[in-house]
């Protein structure tokens, strides 16, 4: 179980290769990557991600632990950035490995659903005309009902 909360960029390809190399006979690896989207119109100057140091790591560990108990997983990786990001920057990734593709997929979706609504990160978008906190989506909260 690898959890990293960092301001530095991460190399998606290198992380994916390293995770797959270490999967140790699991057969199936799923990754999800979240990328900063530009804004229509005037465009995004930057995105700032605030987090709650200490709680963030605990929340992510708890989510990863729950996934590991619920599915037959080889390993779980979560990397999430905070601080300043630009459009097209990679915000975060999760990776799961399993003997069964369905487990790897479901666990990755579970991690994402919980991470969206239960890990203490907040996004703020800066444009030429000001800054705005990204609002949580009802759909993200509703997604938790699936599990």
């Amino acid at each position: 179980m690898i959890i990293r909360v960092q301001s530095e960029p991460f190399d998606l390809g290198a992380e994916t290769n390293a995770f797959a190399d270490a999967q140790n006979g699991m057969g199936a690896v799923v990754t999800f990557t979240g990328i900063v989207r530009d804004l229509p119109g005037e465009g995004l100057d930057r995105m700032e991600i605030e987090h709650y140091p200490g709680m963030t790591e605990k929340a992510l560990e708890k989510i990863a632990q729950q996934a590991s108990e619920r599915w037959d997983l080889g390993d779980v990786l979560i990397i999430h950035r905070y601080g300043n990001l630009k459009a097209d920057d990679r915000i975060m990734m999760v990776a799961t490995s399993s003997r069964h593709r369905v487990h790897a997929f479901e666990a990755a979706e579970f991690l994402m659903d919980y991470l969206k609504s239960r890990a203490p990160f907040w996004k703020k978008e800066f444009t030429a005309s000001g800054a705005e906190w990204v609002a949580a989506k009802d759909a993200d909260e509703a997604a938790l009902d699936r599990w």
Partner: protein
Amino acid sequence: MDVLYFAWVRERIGIPREKVETSAATVADLVAELRTREERYEVAFSDLSALRVAVDQELTDFDASLDGAREVAFFPPMTGG
């Protein structure tokens, strides 16, 4: 007790954290105390349905006990991922 604020709660209250002397039994009691302090607290806590709370870094509810709590944090719904 350390009280922490994040995102727009932090911005409205104007500080990221403070020490609060309180004998509040629950989170809701603490909120009630803070609201009486100053306008900026009243504004930040005006709609509790728009807020989330963590006690000692665990998400919880506004009726949670503060017995033995060292750290309470208020923030809007999270938008990670």
